[in-house]
């Protein structure tokens, strides 16, 4: 589904790579948490999957396509298979809930009939069936994020990328969002979620990929926000340096 092959991403004017020789594979239907401090490369990872950026080295395959060989003309069509959700929702303030979701279908040329059918369905699924005519500022944060999720999945993407979707929400609202994401995952969509929310990660017990300074230091099948096991996937220098990285509470966790 998604394969990174020794991906290094360097940004201009910064000698330290945002991602450093990252190799990983994410399978169909997986629910993956991407954890790590700010600047550890989580957002770069998501941007690379979307082909908003190109890697400095290495090859990325997403949905069977080699992104390096994808022409810029084909990128929009590639992106129709991906849904994206952000921390700041990114809704259009002057459009109501229905139109916000419909907009993403209109601009990829879907027919009016399809939109009339698909949008109410997806709004019902995210639990906003009764609020189709509200404007974004009339909704709570959690509801706005539900609209954003509805927009991301209305076209039935194979992959849903979520960049800290609960970052602006209180814990109980976050839990609601997570239930929704889990339901989406169960329908067969691959979900990749970058997050800082330890509680959510610990509770969900899904695959966890931890990035530190652009390197994968941990890739656990059913992990928490901080590891309780010896890292499954570790690169020599990274695992050696692990004790120096000052991961708080590690000692406590091990004993739990």
């Amino acid at each position, binding site marked *: 589904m998604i394969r990174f092959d020794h991906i290094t991403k360097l940004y201009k004017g910064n000698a330290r790579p945002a991602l450093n020789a990252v190799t990983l594979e994410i399978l169909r239907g997986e629910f993956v948490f991407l954890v790590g401090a700010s600047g550890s490369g989580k957002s770069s990872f998501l941007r690379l999957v979307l082909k*908003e950026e190109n890697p400095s080295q290495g090859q990325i395959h997403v949905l069977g396509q080699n992104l390096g060989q994808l022409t*810029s*003309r084909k990128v929009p069509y590639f*992106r129709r298979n991906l849904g994206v959700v952000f921390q700041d929702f990114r809704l259009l303030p002057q459009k109501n809930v229905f139109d916000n979701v419909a907009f*993403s279908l209109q*601009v*990829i*040329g879907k027919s009016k009939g399809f939109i009339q059918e698909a949008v109410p369905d997806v709004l019902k699924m995210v639990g906003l069936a009764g609020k189709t005519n509200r404007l974004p500022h009339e909704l709570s944060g959690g509801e706005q994020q539900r609209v954003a999720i509805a927009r991301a999945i209305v076209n039935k993407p194979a992959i849903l990328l979520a960049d800290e979707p609960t970052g602006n929400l209180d814990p109980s609202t976050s839990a609601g969002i997570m239930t929704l994401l889990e339901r989406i995952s169960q329908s067969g969509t691959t979900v990749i979620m970058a997050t800082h929310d330890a509680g959510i990660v610990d509770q969900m017990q899904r695959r966890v990929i931890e990035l530190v300074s652009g390197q994968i230091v941990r890739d656990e099948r059913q992990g928490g926000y901080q590891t309780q096991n010896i890292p499954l996937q570790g690169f020599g220098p990274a695992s050696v340096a692990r004790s120096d990285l000052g991961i708080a509470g590690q000692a406590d966790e091990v004993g739990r």
Partner: protein
Amino acid sequence: MRFGLIMSEVGSGLRRNISMVVSVVLVTFISLTFVGAAILLQFQIGQMKGYWNDRAQVSVYMCTDSSTAGQCNLVEATKAQKAGVEAQLKSPALGDLIKSVTFENHDQVYKNYKTYFKDTTGADFITPAFLSETFSINLKDPSKADVIRESVASLAGVEQVVDQRKYLDPIFAALNAASLTAVSIAMLMLVAAVLLIATTIRLSAFSRRRELGIMRLVGASNRFIQTPFILEGVIAALIGSVLASLAVVSIVRFFVQGYLGSQSLDTPFIGMSEAYVVVPILLVVGAVLAATSASFAISRYLKV
């Protein structure tokens, strides 16, 4: 569906940026009016050149008994001298250069004179004998007038050889200068128009950057994203082009045909057919310029 969506995007873009759109309209209007004026001037020059080239370009004036200029000595040119000039003009060396020669005797010249100068005081005192008999020569290549002069001016009985084009050259020079001025002003204005269109489109894209970001995220094709912006620029420029076309047509209709035409000047003027040639040129130039600068301006927002 998609067409309706694109047009509503165009409409909202135009409304949102109304002051910039008005300035784009005005600048394209003025610049294309200058372009049109330059083209019309070139048409006028071409028409005048054609008109004068069809007429006599070189006149050979024969002596009268009141003239001392040239080879004259207060003696009327004799029949033999006239025959000599005619023979010289028909000789193989000159004959090849000449399209036609007409000879006008005193009475014919006087008749022409009377029609041209009928309102002039003193015209009544002129008698046919004062006016030179004339060979009017039409050349195949008007620039060869000097050859005729050199070979005929020294013949007996010739008062003078006049190249009529030398009277026209300053007029053509003035018209050419006016045309060049119009072209240079038009170029400067067009540069301003292109930059203004690019700025307008950029502004419009900036005010819609949220929509653009979401469009790119959900996979709207580049063509779909850029079409409303290009149409926005093209529509604004086309309004300017239409105004410029109206201006050009009214210049021809009311100034050239209405005012200059009523002056009964002995010059042919361009008519509506030339104006109607200019109109499509202006429309196409306006649309193409706007489309190119707009697509250039929007390309920055389409980078993936």
